[in-house]
């Protein structure tokens, strides 16, 4: 459904996308993860043919991009990072207007509107103005708008950023319905939980390069020990010096916390029982641990 080879984009001397290879199969939900500035949004814009690559090739729904971007975009629905619903139109009019951009007749769009409103949970808001909608409603309408022309593939750029948990779960439900209906989805996110829950496969980007790719479970298993014990409290430095190396397979000190990665958490916990001043949190390792291991803990802006 999507095939990218050696994709490269430069701004001046900075390479923001460096030789990216991606392959997404029909019906797959694929995640693009990366810290801010990793090149996720630029990659999406390249895939849509909005900007021209400096190298590499893109084939989207069997169509070469950017050469035939117009035709390719007929088959893609886009949920952008920032809401850009048309504030001069009501909820229903937003869908009608958007369908026209795809060359649909008014009757064809109008026939789809009830289904789209139901999907977005906005059936009772059809005539509401955009300013009256909550953040979650706007996102759901943006998602419905992206489906107006019944695309084969959906691009979502951080679809749940800025939403509260309730609203986020509603979006996830909607996306699961679409996956169930056989749509192909490419989403960017920096919520690991979102990626773990939704995606079949994901790629972690950093500085425009892919640093890992695979199914979320497989990535966790291949990159990181199965358990994490986070240790903090009085006397951490002594414990780290004297004991951590012996019981942790790998450890990392971040600020006031020691992250101890291990396949044998009980050994770590036994050792910690002899240091009652220390507190700890024992949890299974997750995608965030992989992400931080691969992209580092430095702040990105």
């Amino acid at each position, binding site marked *: 459904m999507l095939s990218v080879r050696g994709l490269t984009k430069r701004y001046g001397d900075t390479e923001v996308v460096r030789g990216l290879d991606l392959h997404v199969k029909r019906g797959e939900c694929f995640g693009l993860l990366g810290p801010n500035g990793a090149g996720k949004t630029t990659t999406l814009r390249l895939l849509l043919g909005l900007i021209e690559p400096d190298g590499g090739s893109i084939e989207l729904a069997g169509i070469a991009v950017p050469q035939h971007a117009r035709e390719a975009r007929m088959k893609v629905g886009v949920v952008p990072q920032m809401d850009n619903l*048309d504030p001069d139109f009501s909820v229903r009019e937003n869908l009608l207007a958007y369908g026209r951009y795809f060359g649909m007749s008014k009757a064809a769009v109008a026939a789809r509107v009830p289904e789209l409103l139901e999907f977005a949970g906005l059936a009772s808001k059809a005539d509401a103005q955009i300013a009256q909608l909550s953040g979650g409603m706007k996102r759901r309408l943006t998602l419905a708008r992206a489906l107006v022309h019944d695309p084969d593939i959906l691009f979502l750029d951080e679809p749940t950023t800025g939403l509260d948990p309730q609203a986020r779960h509603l979006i996830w439900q909607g996306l699961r319905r679409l996956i169930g209906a056989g749509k192909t989805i490419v989403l960017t996110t920096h919520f690991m939980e979102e990626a773990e829950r939704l995606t079949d496969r994901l790629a972690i980007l950093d500085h425009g390069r892919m640093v890992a790719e695979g199914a979320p479970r497989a990535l966790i298993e291949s990159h990181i020990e199965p358990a994490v014990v986070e240790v903090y409290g009085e006397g951490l430095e002594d414990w780290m010096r004297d004991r951590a190396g012996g019981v942790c397979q790998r450890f990392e000190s971040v600020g006031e916390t020691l992250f101890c990665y291990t396949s044998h958490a009980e050994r770590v916990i036994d050792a910690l029982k002899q240091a009652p001043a220390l507190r700890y949190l024992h949890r299974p390792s997750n995608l965030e641990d992989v992400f931080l291991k691969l992209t580092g803990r430095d702040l990105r802006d």
Partner: protein
Amino acid sequence: MIRHLRFPRLSWRFIPVWQRNYLVWKKLAIPSILGNLADPMLYMLGLGYGLGSLLPDVAGMPYLTFLAAGTVAYSTMNAATFEVLYSSFSRMHVQRTWDAIMNAPLTLDDVMLGELTWAVSKSLLSGLAILAVIWGLGLYGSFWMTLWIIPVVALVGFCFGGMGLVMNAVSPSYDFFLYYFTLVITPMVLLCGVFFPVSQLPPLLQSVSAWLPLTHAIDLARPLVLGKTPSDIVQHGAALCAYGFAGYVIALALTRRRLLK
């Protein structure tokens, strides 16, 4: 900017963009018409009767007639300019409507052509309203000749729509547009023969005036109001087309650099 310059790729896909603006306008048509048209009409009638009663014939015609011909060009210039400055800027920068549209199979060329043709439509509306006053007050020489003012008005809208889109492309905020009005539009109103004949200006300013697009617009509109065939139709028409087309092409390059980098 140079590497973004290229001949526009025109397609019929601009029509839904025009239609989008039309549908939004329709919701507020009455206040919008009043806002766009009352102002030039008040100037024209106020100055035309008030000042006109003090004046002998101006350039061989009553002052009100002289002013009416200038106002046709001046109000269509303003209608197109306001549309592509403030309204297009809202859609491009504030509401991000252009971004949303370009995720559909439209290009920036389509979106900006939609904006430009919409500006032409607003100009036509504005020009027709002034024309209606001209007809109503019988300020014309030949009714049939005044019908030629309609395509002139569309051309003026195209010219100033294209030029204004350049400002839209480089503006960081609404405040920036004031420079354009102060440095371009207002001087043009005073130099191009809206309120008084260009021949009243010092020779240097007269030669500047000859290059300005509003002069070309008025040189077409004024004879038509009087029922005469304008001289140098081709030159004036070509000048208006050239300003508008150059504006559109430069604006496309600048906006491409701004939005699609």
